[in-house]
Each structure stands twice: as C-alpha cells, then as structure tokens.
C-alpha cells in the first residue's frame, strides 16, 4: 500500500495499522488459521502482549464482561515471563512478516530496566513499548498517571537502549498530556494511547464482582470518543509520533485518529469480532486515500515519507 507507507521511529511500515498489545496473539492465531496468517498478516507491525519479568498465570476467571459496544477485561497479564518469552515466544514471533514491538511491564523501575536490557540485546525486536498502567510497588503510585513517575522510569531505562522506546499512556489519569510531555522530555521516542479505562461489573442480581480480578479495563467502540479527546490533548503537547487506539472499527475511525495527530493507529478489541480487522481497516484507509479523502489529513509529511 504505497499510498499509506508510513515511517515510525526509523521503521518503514506498509500502512499505519498495528495491533493493540494483548489483543492479537499471533502464535495462537497461527494455530487456529495456519500459515495463511503469515501470507496475509493483518498488521504493519506486531505488538506483543505485555511481558513481565516473572511468569504470570493471570487473573481468575471470569475475565470478560460484555458492555454496550464494549468489553471489560480482567486478563491480568498472563505471560511466560522474560525467560519463557525469549525461549518460546520470540523465535515464533520473529517469523512474522512484519517488525516486532515488544510490550513490557515491571512492578519496579529496576524490573523494567531488566526487561529493556534483555530486549535491547535481541535484534528480532524493533522497538519496545512500556506499559506503565500499573502501580510502582515502591512508591505506590500508578506509574503512568504521574509525570514524575514516568520521568524517573525513563531516566533509568533510556540510557540502556538505542531501540525506540514507546510509552503507553493510561486514560485513568488527571492529566495524560502532562505524562506524555514528561515521557518526551525524558527521551521517549513515541507515545501510545489509550490503554483501557477502569471498569467493573457485578454478577447479575448480586452485589458480588463478576470479574475474577474485581475490576478490569474497558475497551471497544464505546471508548472511541475518550480516546480521541486524549489524543487531541497529547498531540497538542508532544512532537514525537503517537500510536493512537481505542474503539477503532473502520477506516473512518482510523482516519479520525490520523487526522487528530496520530502517526499509527492500533486496532484492539475489533480483532475479536473480526480476526482480519487490521487488514480491513488498512484497506478502507487505502480506499479513502485513492479517493483523495485522506490527502488533507494524511500528507507525506505527516507520515514522514518523502513524497
């Protein structure tokens, strides 16, 4: 899709559509769909599910609650941990036909540093996304909600890597734009947004929480308006490229986020409804581009591609 080719932190991507971390397990999808997946991969880069230092089982089920035009998940970041990821997941993900972005989370800054160092050493990894939607167990503060937490984290990890560092912002904060600014000032190469909104559901007819994790994160079509507002506020504060997401279902939704200042757009929950949603959204964007409907918002300059 030459009309959609986009530069992102030194990577040249075929189109601006990637997946949201944790919403598309390419290894599992290959088990379900076979190698056809590799021949027609839906995303221009692949973002892997959050990796933590130690393995995690994730939260007790139930883990899902359907909302009007949305979903609450309390998955709880199950993953094999750093070692398991390096041994089991990384070789398989390296077979994908697109660049790999690894998403990491730590419960202390030092844990994040360990993860960043480990992935810096791996050439299969094109970029690292920092999931800061968790409390720093040392300060008790939500890492992604406080500018100072993010600065402190980047002061530690920025010197450890020359790979692009992307900070993923949480919407559960008073001032995400200030957090984005802090990330940029402390050397982040990009920011991504939005992670899920805090949400909860009760077991019908009771006052007991439905989700094993008590609360969870809201995503899907219903959060689209919230995502756009946060993108708008962040785009006014930072100059680094932005990966925007939240409720994208169509080329029209992606075009709106690109128009509001995103460099890339991630598709999350919509992949659950349509496993090839990423490809479809990219195709719908391409149609718009061909009709000239994107020219005002998606210029070669905005994609950092020589025309």
């Amino acid at each position, binding site marked *: 899709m030459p009309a959609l080719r986009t530069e992102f932190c030194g990577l040249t991507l075929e189109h601006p559509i990637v997946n949201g971390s*944790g*919403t*598309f*397990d390419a*290894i*599992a*999808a290959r*088990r*379900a*769909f*076979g190698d*056809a*997946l590799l021949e*027609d991969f839906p995303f221009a880069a692949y973002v892997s*599910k959050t990796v933590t230092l130690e393995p995690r*089982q*994730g939260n*007790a*089920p*139930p*883990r*899902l*609650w*359907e*909302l*009007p*035009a*949305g*979903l609450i*998940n309390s*998955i709880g970041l*199950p993953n094999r941990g750093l070692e398991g990821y390096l041994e089991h997941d990384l070789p398989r993900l390296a077979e994908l036909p697109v660049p790999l972005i690894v998403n990491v989370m730590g419960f202390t800054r030092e844990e994040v540093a360990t993860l960043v160092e480990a992935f810096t050493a791996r050439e299969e990894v094109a970029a690292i996304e920092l999931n800061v939607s968790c409390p720093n167990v040392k300060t008790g503060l939500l890492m992604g909600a406080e500018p100072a937490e993010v600065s402190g984290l980047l002061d530690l990890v920025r010197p450890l890597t020359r790979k692009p560092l992307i900070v993923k912002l949480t919407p559960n904060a008073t001032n995400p734009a200030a957090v984005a600014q802090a990330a940029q000032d402390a050397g982040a190469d990009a920011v991504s947004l939005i992670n899920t909104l805090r949400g909860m559901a009760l077991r019908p007819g009771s006052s007991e929480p*439905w989700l*094993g994790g008590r609360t969870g994160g809201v995503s*899907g*079509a219903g959060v689209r308006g919230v995502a756009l507002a946060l993108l708008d506020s962040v785009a006014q504060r930072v100059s680094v490229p932005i990966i925007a997401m939240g409720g994208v279902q169509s080329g029209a939704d992606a075009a709106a986020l690109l128009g509001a200042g995103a460099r890339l757009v991630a598709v999350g*929950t919509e*992949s*659950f*409804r*349509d*496993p*090839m949603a990423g*490809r479809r959204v990219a195709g719908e964007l391409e149609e718009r581009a061909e009709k000239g409907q994107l020219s005002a918002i998606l210029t070669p300059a905005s994609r950092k591609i020589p025309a």
Partner: protein
Amino acid sequence: MSAVAEGSRRTLAPLGRRRVSVTRRCSYGPYVVIHCHDESAPAPRPGQFYMLASAERWGGGEGERPYLPRALSFLRAPAGTDEVHFFFEDVGPGTARLSELEAGEELWLAGPFGVGFAPPSDGGRALLVGGGVGIAPLAAWQDELGLDADALLGFRDAQHAEGAAVMAAAQLATDDGSAGHHGLVTELLAAELDGGEEATVYACGPPRMLEAVRVMCSERAVPAQLALESGMACGFGACFGCVVATREGYKRLCLDGPVLDAAELLTALTPGAGH
C-alpha cells in the same frame, strides 16, 4: 481446504471471518437450528466450534448488547454439502438475535476453532452424555462414531426434550419426568457405567452436569472428554479471556479446548460459563 492439524482433532479455520447466509431455520421445542451455506467450508471436527454474529444489527438488543460474536458448537456439517448447522437456545441478547435470523439473512462466521473429540483410545465403547443445548457437539460425533455410540440426553422437560430429535438415537431423562427417565441424565450414565463394559465418555452440558460426570468417571477410572463452555470474546486465542483452570494452570478453552480431558480438570464448575 480441510487441513487437519493437532492429530485429527483440529481443522484449521479459513483466515478471518466470512459472510454466509442462512439457508434454513427450524425449531425443536425451545431450540433453534439454523443451516448456513459456508462455501469455504473446511470439514470441521466434531467438538469444534465457530464464532457467529448476525451481519446486520448485531447490537441494540437487551442492555444494548450483543457486541462480541457468540461461540456455538456446530451440530452437523453434512459431507458433500457446503452446509454447517447450529443448535442453540435463546438465553440472552446474542442468542436472541441469532434465533431471529430467517433463511436468506446473513451471518459473520469464523471457525472452525478449537480441538474436537478424540476417538476412544482403546477402540472401546463411546458413551455420549448431553444436557440441554449441550447435545449440539454430540450429534456430529455420534454420526461419525456410528450408532453404537450410545447417547444419554438430559432435558428440563418434555418440551425441551424435543431437541433430542437432532440426534440419531438416544436414551432420555427429564428433570420433571415428562419424557424418558424421571431424573438426571447422570443417573442413566451411572447405570451404563456400572453395567461393566469399557467405555469412553463424551459429555457436554451445564457445569453441574459436567462436574457430576467428571466425578463419576474419575471414581470409576473411566476416561472422559468434556466439552466445556466459558465466556469467549474472540475464539482464536487473541483475548486470553476464556481460560479454565486445569492441573497445568489456566488454559484457553478456545485454543486448547473446548474439549478437555476430564483428568486435566480439578472441577468442571467453570466460573462465568455460558449459562
């Protein structure tokens, strides 16, 4: 088309979802059967499932749902046709919408997903135990195993027991005694198991029934394969939402199930299962 992986228990799904039309709709008591014309139809393995959503107006029902597609076992995918059949009951906004679909209307279909049943390892007798809509995956399995695969089916009452008509042959039990044995289908199972012949049990139904089957088979050291349910958002391993606890930790039911060996489970009472 039908690439078979993971032994003979998984047929790979065509990439993505596809738009198919309903060719027939009929009902059996409170149950609805729809036939879909699925051209790209790879032959699914009994026990596998699909994710379904109406192509139009998936949403706007009770509580402004559904939004996500719904998991349904296939009932049958008759060889030589491009058809796949589903069997379900209206229990909420998703199945309510699906049950409205008439011939000519369209669906989004993805699948087949998951792994189906494995044949009795010793070539012994197969005992199929179903409860309510849980009989769906057993029909195709009975077709394949042949009629000596005995089916024991439990329903609430005679009206629900009309659903048994989708199976080739079966012994019935109803909670209220209005059809067949008055009592639980697991009572029929106990009688069969205590009859002595070696058997492998294949069961699908409500959590309490599955748990009774699990305990019963475990006590008698009878191998059992249970087709479980859990809430699913995607069906292809993307969301990690459908896990059930096994002896080896949580497993994604859409990827490593929905058919699990009873011996893997500590309980079949999976929290938040369909209904």
